[in-house]
């Protein structure tokens, strides 16, 4: 479904990604793990069009998307829930969700999608009229996820959805992600919580200093020394 081949990305003159390639098949959960500054967010930003790769190609559902602006990419069904939630804090919960359905493909059916999202996150419905800034951290994360679902994505990219949340809420986030897969949505997940991530994901890639150093199914990876030492603290 998503095919990234030999992508190189720069910040000004500093190279952040080196020949990164990855593959995601339909209805998979693929995890991307790595230390801070390994280039995970850069990779997501490159896929979603916020950054332009200097070389390499990215294909989504058989179409080249590298070099396209972000709004075209989301229009094709690739939703990116960015790091740090990035809500529109001066807009209401309802409006934030509506913004999620901005692509014209999703705009028409936004009422139905909205109902579905409200079903998944009932608390958002209660707070529909509130400004996003008045929500608690957990509620904000739910809103960000709900907003990410509004464009009816085929592939969702989550960038540290559990960051800064209480353990209870972390669990909820993971449940939601799993339930998405059941709805047929493909997922690319970045998480600090490596153990739990590897539990729910099918496959994973390990990113270090902008390069993919390991890849494989989660079971395999759990056996790798590198993963054990660096990410599981074993």
């Amino acid at each position, binding site marked *: 479904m998503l095919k990234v081949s030999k992508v190189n990305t720069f910040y000004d003159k500093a190279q952040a990604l080196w020949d990164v390639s990855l593959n995601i098949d339909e209805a998979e959960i693929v995890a991307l793990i790595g230390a801070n500054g390994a280039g995970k967010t850069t990779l997501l930003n490159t896929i979603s069009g916020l950054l*332009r790769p200097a070389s390499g190609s990215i294909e989504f559902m058989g179409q080249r998307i590298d*070099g*396209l*602006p972000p709004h075209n990419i989301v229009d094709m069904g690739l939703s990116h829930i960015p790091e740090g939630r990035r809500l529109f804090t001066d807009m209401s919960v309802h409006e934030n969700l509506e913004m999620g359905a901005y692509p014209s493909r999703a705009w028409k059916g936004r009422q139905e999608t909205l109902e579905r999202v409200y079903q998944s996150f009932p608390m958002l419905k209660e707070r529909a009229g509130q400004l996003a800034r008045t929500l608690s951290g957990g509620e904000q994360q739910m809103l960000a996820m709900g907003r990410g679902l509004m464009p009816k994505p085929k592939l969702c990219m989550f960038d540290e959805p559990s960051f800064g949340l209480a353990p209870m809420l972390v669990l909820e986030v993971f449940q939601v992600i799993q339930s998405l897969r059941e709805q047929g949505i493909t997922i690319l997940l970045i998480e600090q919580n490596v153990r739990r991530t590897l539990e729910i994901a099918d496959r994973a890639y390990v990113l270090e200093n902008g390069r993919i150093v390991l890849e494989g199914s989660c079971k395999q990876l759990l056996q790798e020394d590198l993963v054990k030492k660096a990410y599981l603290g074993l």
Partner: protein
Amino acid sequence: MDITTFTSNKKFWIWGISLLAVLAALATLPQWLGSYYVILLKDILMLVLITVSWVIFSGPTGYMSLASAAFFGVGVYTSALLLPMTGAVLPLLLVIVIAGLVSFILGLLAGALTLRLKGIYFAVFTFGLVLLIQRFLLWFEMNITHTRGRFVLLVEDNTIFYVMLAIFVATLLTAYFIRRSKFGLALQSIGLNEEAAAHSGVNVTRVKVITFAISAVFMGAAGAIYATKLTYIDPYIAFNPLFSFLPVLMAIFGGLGSFYGPIIGAALFSYLQEFLKTEFPFQYMIIFGLLLMAVIVFMPRGLVGLVQRLLASLKEGPEEKSTPGWAIIFCLFGILGGLVGWFIFRERRGARVLLKAGGVVTLIGGAAYLLMFLLTLLGGLGGGYF
């Protein structure tokens, strides 16, 4: 870097000596240049020194001050009050010192008032200061003193030039040492992150206010000497908002990244303005406007940024992405050629055609900028930039 360690630096002496040589050359200019060139040079020096003083505060901190016209105007008005045409109260040099002091105090006050403001609020407030003082002074003169403008003592051109040169040198030295001292470091840390600077022990308030006031001193002094050429002064003339915008424009034109950028930028910019006003009085606005736009579009880091880019591309070979760099070089040559042609042939009678030709080259340079811009637009259409 401490001043003492720096003065032992070899580079310092090289720069120092070459600067002295340039200054010495400047000092002898009135001996063999006509009075117009002395005045022009004086005005260019003034604009450069105002730009440099602006950069002292606004460069490292990133606060865009538009108070320059207020500081400058205070200087002009001090002259108007203390150096009336009918018998000066005080000697010229003393008046200039007083003007600097008054500006300093105004800088302290304005600095203290604006501590809480950041970004555009600071810019708008400082600009407001100019109009506020202008209007209040005007109201005061109209309603309280009933003054019909003030006449200022005329001072001999060469004297004005040398005084301006002295203020210029003082400004450069101050700017240089502030930049190289602990104080400059503190300023830069404020520019990068004010909270972090405060946490690391910088007295942010004090550093900001004092630097703001120091940058005001030279503008005030320059205003005081500038006034002696104007004959007639009223608050509108003294507090001309143009002097708020010029230093910003000139500094960005030259490039804020380095010490010499604003100096070169201001010198070229002011000369270019004079050139256009006299050679192309009827097209001055459009050429100047297009040039400003072209500079920002093609040289967002100013002249210095452009030179650095060119040097880098010479070293590392041409960049992979096509930039209109070469066109810019040629255009600059055109402009430079035009200016040189103008400068050399200006005094010869009957050479006006040639001068116009120099101007035509300049025009083509400007047109080339524009065309390159359009081409870039067209070229970028497919690339997703546009």
